[in-house]
Every structure is written in C-alpha cells, then in structure tokens.
C-alpha cells in the first residue's frame, strides 16, 4: 500500500487538462512534401484547445472534441505547360500599301513556371486517448498523459475550402502571365483536379497529425528530492524527503472515475 495517495476527480482533471493544454501553446514545423503532382514546401502551425476529459480505468484519459486550430503556408512550383498546351501564334501577314505584304514568323508561346503561395487555416475536432506514463528524468518524477496511437484526423470541409484557396492562389500567381487569360479557368480547374481531396489529405494528414499524436500533456511533476519546508533562517535549512517510488493510474471508484497518484517516501 502506498504511503501517499493523491487523487482528483474528472472535474479537477478537466481543469488540469484545460490548464495544461493552454500551456502547450502553438506548435510549428516546416518541411517539404507532396501535394498531388506537386512538390511543396510548407510551414505549418497548430494550437490545441478545448477537449472534454473522460477518465477510464485503469490507465486511459480520453479527450473528446479536442480542437486543433491549424494554419499552413504552402509554396509550390506550377509549370503551366504541364496543364495547358503551349500557344502557337501562326504566321501573320498583312498588306502594307505601296510596300507589299509583310509576314511575321510564327511564334510559340511557352508557358512559364510560376511559384504559387497558398496560405490557409482551419480547425478540426478529434478524440484521443491518453495513456498515463511515468518517468524519472533528471531527478524529477513526471506523470504525463501521452496520446496513444495515431489519431485519424478528419479534415472534412477543410479540404474543399483549401482546394478553393489553392484555386484562388493559382489564379493570383499566374495573373501576370501573358496570354493566360483565356486559359485561366481551364488551368485552375486542372490544377485543383490534379491535387484533389486525396492530394490534400495526403499532405495535411502527415504534417498536421504530429501536432496531436505523441503529444504529452503534463499531469504532475514531483522532484525525487521533495522539499517539505523551505529554508527559513540560518538554523532552519530546507527539509527534504526522498520520493522512492511513484505511480499513477485511473481508478474506478463508483460513482467517480479518479486520476490517482501514489507515492512512497523516506526521510
């Protein structure tokens, strides 16, 4: 039997989680990946919030409706010629009075490659299971809730909105390209179709999922050399006890589910 037992109910666990998730702050990362047929470089950030705590014995903390606000900045190179044929302007001849007929050579207009920047943000809700993990690192006992497995994030309406944003971004990026006007709609449609929902989820899933999977939510930290009393004078040095062992678990103690920390100490 453990010498010290500290327990909180779900309401307190909810407060604890709310505090900890707020303390996580925004996370960000960058890299390169694929967006349909394109290679993209990306910078993505995500912030977790909300979530409803459900303690499930013996060692699971379920967080339902965990909200992830995410924002991604994408940049990819679009070779317009990959989507619409180059333009061939045929020889043009015109008769100049008193001179004769003058003809221009035929001209091939080769489409350029343009850089398309896309900036987009949205949020999603997911449910994750946290496993209660214990560690002793650098003299500190840590009790954490760690997201188990890789949650399947549902981007839902985000994909349609992001595809629309990509379409707008392509339109803006190629606006300067001479002669693109008549082909703009075709080009945007072709690019969006080439990326598709599969392309977006193929990109977003791997780069945004890490903001949730593997996330560690601190539950509590206890120094292995715990200060019982602080120093309070020349004859009153700080008083410590040694925390020999620590445990953490979820107990079903009807009618409550409780998050319990167990400890043994010695002077």
């Amino acid at each position, binding site marked *: *039997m*453990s*010498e*010290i*037992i*500290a*327990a*909180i*109910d779900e*309401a*307190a666990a909810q*407060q*604890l989680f709310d505090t900890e998730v707020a303390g996580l702050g925004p996370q960000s990362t960058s890299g390169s990946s694929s967006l349909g047929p394109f290679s993209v470089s990306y910078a993505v950030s995500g912030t977790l919030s909300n979530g409803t705590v459900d303690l499930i014995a013996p060692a699971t903390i379920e967080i339902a409706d965990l909200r992830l606000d995410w924002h991604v900045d994408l940049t990819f190179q679009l070779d317009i010629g990959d989507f619409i044929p180059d333009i061939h302007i045929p020889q043009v001849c015109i008769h100049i009075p008193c001179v004769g007929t003058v003809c221009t050579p035929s001209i091939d207009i080769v489409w350029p490659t343009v850089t398309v920047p896309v900036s987009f943000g949205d949020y999603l809700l997911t449910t994750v299971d946290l496993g209660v993990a214990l560690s002793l690192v650098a003299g500190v006992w840590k*009790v954490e809730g760690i997201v188990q497995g890789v949650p399947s994030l549902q981007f839902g309406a985000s994909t349609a909105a992001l595809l629309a944003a990509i379409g707008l971004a392509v339109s803006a990026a190629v606006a300067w390209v001479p002669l693109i006007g008549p082909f703009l709609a075709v080009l945007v449609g072709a690019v969006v179709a080439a990326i598709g929902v599969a392309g977006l989820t193929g990109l977003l899933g791997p780069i945004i999922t890490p903001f949730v999977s593997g996330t560690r939510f601190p539950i*509590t930290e*206890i120094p292995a050399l*715990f200060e*019982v*009393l*602080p120093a*309070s004078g020349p*004859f*009153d*040095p*700080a*008083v*410590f*006890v040694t*925390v020999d062992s620590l445990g953490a678990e979820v*107990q079903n*103690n*009807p*009618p*409550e589910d*409780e998050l*319990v*920390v167990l*400890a*043994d*100490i*010695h*002077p």
Partner: protein
Amino acid sequence: MSLTETSEVFVAVEESALNDLITAVCGTRPHLLNYGSPAFVPGSSVSATQMAPIPFPGSPGLQWSVRLTTPVLDLFKQDQTLPPELSLGAGQFSLSTKVRLCVDCASRGRNEPPGEDPKGHDHQGHDHQGHDHPGEDQQWPDDRDDWGKARNPMCCTLDVFAVGHLVSTWAGGQRAVGFALDAVEIVDIEPNALESVIECLLTMVLRSVLATLSLPVTALELGAFTLTPTVGPLIDVNRVLARGDF
C-alpha cells in the same frame, strides 16, 4: 466509494509517511527538539536552541537542558501500546518520545560520582528520577565564562507518551497541519505528586515543541495536485486525509 467524494481533490498520508515527514523535519532541524541554557547549549545552531538559565536569587541562574528524541506518531486506530492512563480516540494521534532533562549541579564536589552524561551516555547508579543533594548551601559561582561546559551535569531520561489531535494552521504562508496535545503521561514516577509536576512540565515543553512542528499541506500530497482543503486534514484510520477544491 470514491476517494474524492463530493470534493475534487483527495489526499491521504499513511502513518508511516507522516512519521517520515516528521523525521525529516526533526532530523534536518534538530534544534526543534534540543533546548538548553548556555552551560549546555553554548549558542543557538541547527543542532540546538540556546535559552536563558532559570533565574534564581543568589545564583547566576540554573543551567538546564531538555532534549527529545524524534516523536513517533501513531494515528487512530491504535497500534502502539500506551500507558493505561491514556486512550487513543477517533481522530487522535498518540505520540511517544524520550525526554532527557539535565541540570548542572554546580555545587557538587569533583570527587562525587558524576550524574548521567548529558550527551546521552547513561552512568551506573543513577535512575531516571535524578538526584537530590540537600544541605548544599555554598554560594554558586558565576560560570558564564564556561558556557557549554556544564560542570556537573545531572540528567535523567523519561519515556513520555501523549495523545493529541490535528489542527489547521499556517506555515510559511501556506496551509499546514499542526499538532495539538490533549494529554501527557510519564511512566512510573512516584510519588504521584512528582509525576503530576513532571507531566505538567513536559506537557508545556511538548506543547511548545509541537507548536514549532507543522507540515504544509503541499508536503502531504508532494505537490502532486493543488489542494485547497475544505475537509481536513483529519485523522482517518491510520492515515491523515484531506479533501478540497482543485
């Protein structure tokens, strides 16, 4: 039955952990258990607390010391044997310790047998009831130059038992649990009047000592969760528990 019941946070400290905490405090700050006048305690330190001699007309003051061993607490229900005069009720703790009382018997001749070693080494021929030397009327010398050098220490060790209850208090600006005495019993002192006097004396001593011993609530739960007690800390069965808000 849930641990937290209608509260959000629950903390329970077993009897052994409570004694570990008290041992840590007393071991780190032994001066909380060791008091004496200059002949026994040359200066206040982590080890001991210097106090004034007991003034008495015609003398520079009676030199004395009181030293307690780390008290051992037994929380209800009773596990430790107590003198029949004491009983451990619900919500109470019992306390056992040894108290060593010393005086510097300045008028004793050098050739007379020494009393009990104030450092704790018992000497043959002296019981715990101490010594009495009637008829000594020699003027006591002023020995302030010899602080820390009790000339003729005479000591006795008493087994002391007590019962008490927990009180809520504050320590260093934090909510804390303190210890209050309800009754004290010393074993086998006669006559009874003397026992009563000694018990009264030690009750006052113990009460003063325990007043300096308090444990922050955060220490009870090792800071695992923030607890604002609304119930307790109180003595349950062989443990101290508290419940409150997060």
